[in-house]
């Protein structure tokens, strides 16, 4: 009887579950970045690597650009009718209206990608009489605009019946370009290494792997890209080849899809996954020229260096770039307060596309140090209201180091002022901070700020401040005054010194935006850790904040913090004019 009653109640529960209104799932773990993302290769966008076998094509392109009709004709074989259709299309002024830049009349790089017999679906909007057998679909790709023009050419009537234009679209790629893409891929040392082949052993590579060509996208460069894909041991190696610049963009292994279509690897996905898995989620050690440190891309504070030492002596606890404040003087209160950082899951408004890069610093052909650089870009830079920022840490073999940054424009106008906010924490628990007053060093005993002005005093070497640890070691601080041979015009910087209080997070972890865009005085954010009651900082652990001020300039020949696109050889090329800032730190001789 009891069992029957229990069953009865269970049945009731089941009935009431018809009205269950919730779908419950506990917080769902998302697959982490797998080893494929970590091991993927992203080629630097400014890589100049080319291949000898593309030279012929490059010469053909250059020759075509000089023609009255600057269009590369279809490279593979066409029959007589197809050749006639191609010619008819190229005589049509509507079809060819975008082969030259409006205004300058400079040619874009354009190429006929296909001449196909027209289908009924191509003729849907054509009202004039035609015979389908005489009609051909002619497709033209504009590399400069990344756009496609399509003409329906009637070889019987010897005219174009209809035209269509599609921006940000690429037609089907002709066989010759497909072969070229595959050749670039197999000739790339990175692909050969990934497949375990000897360098240059292209025939063996082709023979031993199943090769196909996948469509892909280069979303950020806006270039024509395809992905030769090599299947080996049940896995697929995607090699993204840029057919606008004829180079390998990157490569990544994927699993061959067994439970559905395999994910498409695109330029953006390759870059974002690589950056996130390798640099956003773990610290990377760097040891070189006596310097030792860790670096990491933060969510919203740019590239952070930490635990920096020189010849075994601790120098910096950490340093990072908290914000870029951008204000425009022409419009009150208009501007942006941008955080820079990781591409996924971050509070960054301007994100990292490329991995950090270590570059040598040379002077008079002699190696004097190295630089650690990270760029952050808006995807449509250098279009107006898009931004490109560079962070640069310089470390010298003589113990100097510099914490620098640059704006590469373009911004929303030529009346912009950029204010990067640096946060720098020196090692050591006891620091004293002093300024040069013209005659000697004057200690700062309390938290305060000060602006670099035309009347500011410097030592004969150009030092404005000095920071000394309890054991007498320390650094002079030399603000930018246009002396660092990087085009900088002077920092006009605000310097703030605040107490680094134990147990209080005043910027140690990733900061939300520290200040508004458009204050033109010292109210840039760090003052909130000083006001209203400045604390004692004498012989205590301190934080140094540095806010430079860079006024942009688009005067021809004097461009600064600026960028523009110029049409060269059929493609838009970016000319950028970086505005650098940031202090140099010079060891105090004991």
């Amino acid at each position: 009887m009891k069992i029957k009653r229990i069953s009865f109640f269970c049945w009731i529960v089941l009935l009431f579950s018809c009205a269950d209104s919730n779908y419950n799932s506990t917080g769902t773990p998302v697959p982490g970045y797998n080893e494929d993302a970590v091991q993927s290769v992203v080629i630097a966008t400014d890589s100049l690597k080319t291949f000898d076998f593309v030279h012929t094509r490059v010469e053909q392109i250059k020759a075509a650009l000089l023609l009255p009709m600057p269009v590369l004709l279809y490279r593979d074989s066409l029959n007589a009718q197809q050749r006639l259709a191609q010619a008819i299309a190229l005589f049509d002024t509507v079809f060819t209206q975008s082969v030259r830049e409006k205004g300058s009349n400079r040619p874009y790089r354009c190429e006929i990608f296909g001449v196909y017999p027209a289908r009924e679906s191509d003729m849907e909007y054509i009202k004039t009489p035609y015979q389908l057998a005489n009609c051909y679909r002619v497709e033209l790709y504009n590399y400069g605009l990344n756009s496609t023009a399509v003409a329906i050419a009637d070889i019987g009537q010897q005219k174009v019946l209809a035209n269509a234009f599609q921006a940000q679209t690429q037609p089907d790629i002709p066989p010759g370009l497909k072969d070229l893409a595959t050749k670039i891929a197999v000739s790339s040392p990175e692909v050969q290494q990934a497949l375990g082949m000897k360098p240059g052993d292209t025939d063996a590579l082709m023979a031993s792997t199943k090769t196909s060509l996948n469509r892909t996208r280069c979303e950020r460069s806006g270039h024509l890209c395809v992905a030769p894909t090599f299947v080996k041991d049940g896995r697929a190696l995607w090699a993204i080849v840029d057919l606008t610049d004829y180079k390998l963009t990157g490569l990544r292994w994927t699993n061959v899809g067994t439970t559905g279509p395999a994910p498409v690897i695109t330029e953006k996905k390759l870059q974002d996954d690589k950056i996130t898995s390798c640099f956003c989620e773990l610290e990377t050690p760097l040891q070189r020229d006596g310097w030792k440190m860790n670096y990491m891309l933060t969510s919203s504070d740019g590239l952070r260096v930490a635990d920096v030492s020189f010849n075994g002596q601790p120098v910096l606890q950490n340093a990072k770039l908290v914000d870029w404040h951008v204000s425009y003087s022409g419009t009150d209160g208009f501007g942006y307060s941008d955080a820079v950082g990781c591409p996924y899951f971050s509070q960054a408004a301007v994100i990292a596309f490329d991995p950090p890069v270590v570059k040598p610093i040379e002077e008079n052909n002699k190696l004097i140090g190295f630089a650690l650089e990270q760029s952050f870009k808006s995807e449509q830079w250098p279009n107006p209201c898009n931004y490109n920022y560079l962070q640069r840490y310089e470390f010298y073999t003589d113990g100097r180091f510099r914490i620098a940054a640059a704006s590469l424009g373009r911004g929303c106008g030529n009346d912009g002022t950029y204010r990067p906010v640096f946060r720098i924490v020196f090692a050591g628990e006891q620091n004293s901070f002093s300024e040069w007053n013209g005659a000697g060093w004057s200690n700062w005993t309390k938290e305060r700020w000060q602006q670099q002005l035309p009347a500011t005093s410097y030592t004969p070497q150009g030092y404005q401040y000095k920071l000394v640890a309890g054991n007498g070691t320390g650094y002079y601080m030399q603000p930018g005054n246009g002396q660092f041979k990087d085009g900088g015009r002077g920092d006009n910087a605000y310097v703030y010194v605040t107490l680094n209080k134990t147990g209080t997070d005043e910027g140690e972890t990733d900061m939300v935006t520290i200040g508004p865009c458009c204050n033109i005085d010292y109210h840039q954010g760090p003052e909130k850790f000083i006001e209203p009651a400045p604390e004692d900082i004498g012989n205590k652990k301190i934080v140094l904040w540095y806010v430079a001020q860079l006024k942009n300039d688009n005067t021809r020949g004097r461009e600064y913090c600026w960028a523009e696109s110029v049409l060269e050889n059929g493609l838009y090329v970016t000319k950028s004019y970086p505005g650098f800032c940031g202090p140099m730190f010079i060891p105090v001789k004991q």
Partner: protein
Amino acid sequence: MWSHVYTGKAISTMRNIVLFFIICAAIPSCGENDKVVYSDNNCKLVPPFVGRLGFNTKNALFSTSEKKTMGLVLIESADPLNPQAAIIKKYQDSSWKKAGWLAPIQLDEHGNIFTAPAPFINVLNNPANDQNTIYKVNGQNGHMDAFVKLPAPDSSTDQNPYGILGMIYLCETGSLYVSTVAGSNRRVEKGMVYQVNAANGEISAKLTGMDIIGMGISYINGERRLFLGRARSSGVYSVALNKKGNFSGKPELAFSLDGLGTRGDDKVRRIKTNKDGSLEVHGMEFNFNLIAPTEKQETVYRFVYDEKQKKWVHQ
């Protein structure tokens, strides 16, 4: 007042009788009475205060995406259907910027407006503790106040600056569906979709563990379904809504924007049902960061339901 004594056997019998009647009442709630009748879900009313402000109610629209004006803005356009049309005038009540930058907008049949904060470029004006608050603009007097504070996530993260992302109103039941991704990070998806009573703010139901942005409501094969655009992929799911507007069953994959358009990885910002039953799906770029492209990176896709294949097909 009632004073009776019952034997054990009598009590048992009475219990069974009561249960019998409960079951009889329960069975209809799982069957015919749950049937949803088609409705075009188009009940939104222009708020009465719009006319009193001297705006042409036929050409008035609300915006939260004016780049130089934080908050909600009332606009009178020469042609509301044309984004490039001339703006005749604008208005902003002082209370409309109290929550910082805003994102979704929904109107009900009384002219009340529901919206929620979402950061724009930075979080300076959008504190994290307000990211799960629904705000309501009173349709009569035009004043905006906090309406409902959705439950906070169990932990916060600096990886994700967002909270509420999407809203959709169901006229028939007076339900406001609200999606939030608060608390989600790179590793764990903690998003929720809430069914909120638009009259009193009570939460009637929820879906958990799904990061959703845009939503839409449509009727397929006699069933009303809520479409849910995922925030982490281009997939669009749907879940049935019963007569009360509660979620019924599990969300299922309906279609995807993967590979479509100029970007190829769009996420759904909103879904509108056309009169012919097709879906107008607005896809945009979204990666849980604060990039703000100068030109709006959005594409509209059209999906129709193929009766033979029993699936949504992109046109």
